[in-house]
């Protein structure tokens, strides 16, 4: 068994990416994710990899686009305003069906906002923040181990579905330290990259593009992408269910909010309240069926987010028709992170 390490979440992402075979990294400094480029700048050169601190977030995502078009596992990381800058190219990559990893250790907003843990980017991440109607695969780790594991999973799923993948975290999961048990990337069958550019050699020309002007061409392309999003919904939804089987109130939330919520749920259980936690791990695809199933019996859901209500829209669309959905959220900023006691109070209010 490999030894346990005590590392920050941002480092766990880097370790997961390196273990998954990611060699080129392209980024630009922004708090609270600077430990990612700093780690990569130390480690990748030793592994014959590539580290570039680009001139902007726009340049770095386009370097990812170029590298990914040759079939290598490439990544970039940033935080909210930087992700906004990358969106045009994320839309291109979704259209081009290029796998890659984009990490958003998000911060509070809007605008320059602040650097506190925030979930204000849920809509941007999950609804296809850029133009044209697309989705990226979005994974929301809530522990250091998940930062590592989900990074590896993201690279695999990105290749299987030929889709850009995003890790959506924040300063809590990015900066906190916890034990990490590193392990080799679980082996998984991956499709051949018969689309990757390599110089045509003796074969046929390959090209990667997003411009379709022929009659009906672009519509057909959009249906292909749509079918992929449906397949993701069918096959790749992931969530954690904690004490939900006998629950009369289910708390939900993702990432750092779910961590605080879990503590509150345990406190409620200690007081004899039948409360459970349903935590989406994939935000796109959203685990709709798990919500439908859980609310067939349990008719009360309390959604907790570090914003004024974003995921709650997907929760409302997913629960059984006669289930009630309550929301408790605090838009982030200094001093705005809810405490477990505060959430316990909300649980009792709606129980």
């Amino acid at each position, binding site marked *: 068994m490999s030894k346990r390490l005590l590392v920050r979440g941002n480092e766990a992402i880097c370790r997961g990416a390196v273990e998954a075979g990611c060699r*080129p990294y*392209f980024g630009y400094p922004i708090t609270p994710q600077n430990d990612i480029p700093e780690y990569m700048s130390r480690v990748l050169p030793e592994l014959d990899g*590539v580290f*570039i601190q*680009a*001139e*902007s977030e*726009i*340049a*770095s995502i*386009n*370097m*990812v*686009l*170029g*590298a*990914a*078009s*040759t079939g*290598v596992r*490439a990544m970039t990381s940033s935080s909210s305003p930087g992700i906004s800058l990358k969106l*045009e*190219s994320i839309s*291109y990559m979704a259209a*081009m069906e290029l796998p890659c990893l984009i990490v958003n250790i998000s911060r509070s907003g809007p605008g320059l906002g602040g650097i506190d843990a925030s979930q204000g980017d849920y809509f941007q991440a999950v609804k296809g923040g850029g133009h044209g109607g697309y989705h990226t695969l979005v994974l929301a780790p809530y522990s250091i181990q998940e930062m590592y594991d989900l990074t590896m999973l993201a690279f695999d799923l990105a290749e299987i579905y030929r889709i850009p993948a995003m890790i959506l975290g924040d300063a809590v999961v990015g900066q906190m330290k916890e034990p990490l048990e590193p392990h080799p990337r679980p082996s998984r069958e991956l499709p051949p990259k018969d689309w990757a*550019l*390599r*110089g*045509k*050699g*003796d074969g046929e*020309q*390959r*090209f*990667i*593009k*997003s*411009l379709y002007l022929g009659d009906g061409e672009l519509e057909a392309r959009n249906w292909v992408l749509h079918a992929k999003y449906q397949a993701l919904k069918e096959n790749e939804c992931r969530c954690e269910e904690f004490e939900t089987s006998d629950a009369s109130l289910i708390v939900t939330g993702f990432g750092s909010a779910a961590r605080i919520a879990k503590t509150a749920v345990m406190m409620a259980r200690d007081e004899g309240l039948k409360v459970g936690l349903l935590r989406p791990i994939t935000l796109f695809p959203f685990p709709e069926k798990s919500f439908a199933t859980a609310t067939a019996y349990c008719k009360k859901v309390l959604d907790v987010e570090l914003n004024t209500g974003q995921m709650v829209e997907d929760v409302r669309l997913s629960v059984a028709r006669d289930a009630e959905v309550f929301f408790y959220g605090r838009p982030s900023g200094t001093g705005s992170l809810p405490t477990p006691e505060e959430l316990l109070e909300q649980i009792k209010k709606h129980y």
Partner: protein
Amino acid sequence: MQQVFKRPESLKDVQTHYCPGCHHGTIHRLVAEALDEFGLQKKTIGVASIGCSVFLYSYFDIDVVESPHGRAPAVATGVKRARPDSFVFTYQGDGDLAAIGTAEIIHAANRGEDISVIFVNNTTYGMTGGQMAPTTLLGQRTSTSPFGRKQDTEGYPIRVTELLSCLDGVAFAARAAVNTPKNLMDAKKQIKKAFRYQVEGKGFSFVEVLSSCPTNWGMSAIQANERVGKEMCDYFKLGTYKNTANF
């Protein structure tokens, strides 16, 4: 019988969508000939930019990736760093490279990326209908400078080749034109030199090619060709601005 003239292998046997008298097609041919002469077709990855030349993959028989508007030098950086054995070039217009993509070209050049850039300057945004570009000449009427470009409000036309040649990361920088047989032969030589830099791993190479846009200039093919020689060559002087390896 000896064959003295043929279509380059790197170019497809198809008709282009370029307007009559447009120089894009001629410049494509010179690039393709240079690829052939270095035997690069099989290991080349071209980066297409957003502009009239976006369909690079339709005309070149090479692997191509499309770049978002202005970002081709960043895309090419990613391609080349991931596949250092491939030959990588971008093909960009003046709106693409000298306006929205200013940061990407300067920094790719400054890092000395081992890529080649073909910069096609027609002093306008061809694809979107002839708007003013950073390279539009003073007094030139475009669809967004209907009274002619004025330095007071619109600044001066940017000389990109001169600008880039100041950067230590740039190994080769030249400006050429294809408006006369002599200029065309020179342009071919400059493109070949630029490619030789990359073939020999000698760093970033850049060729600006002055080009015509009869459609948006409101001129006949012949008038447009003459404008390149008279007005453009006068402001954008042809020549080699940097040649660190003395090719």
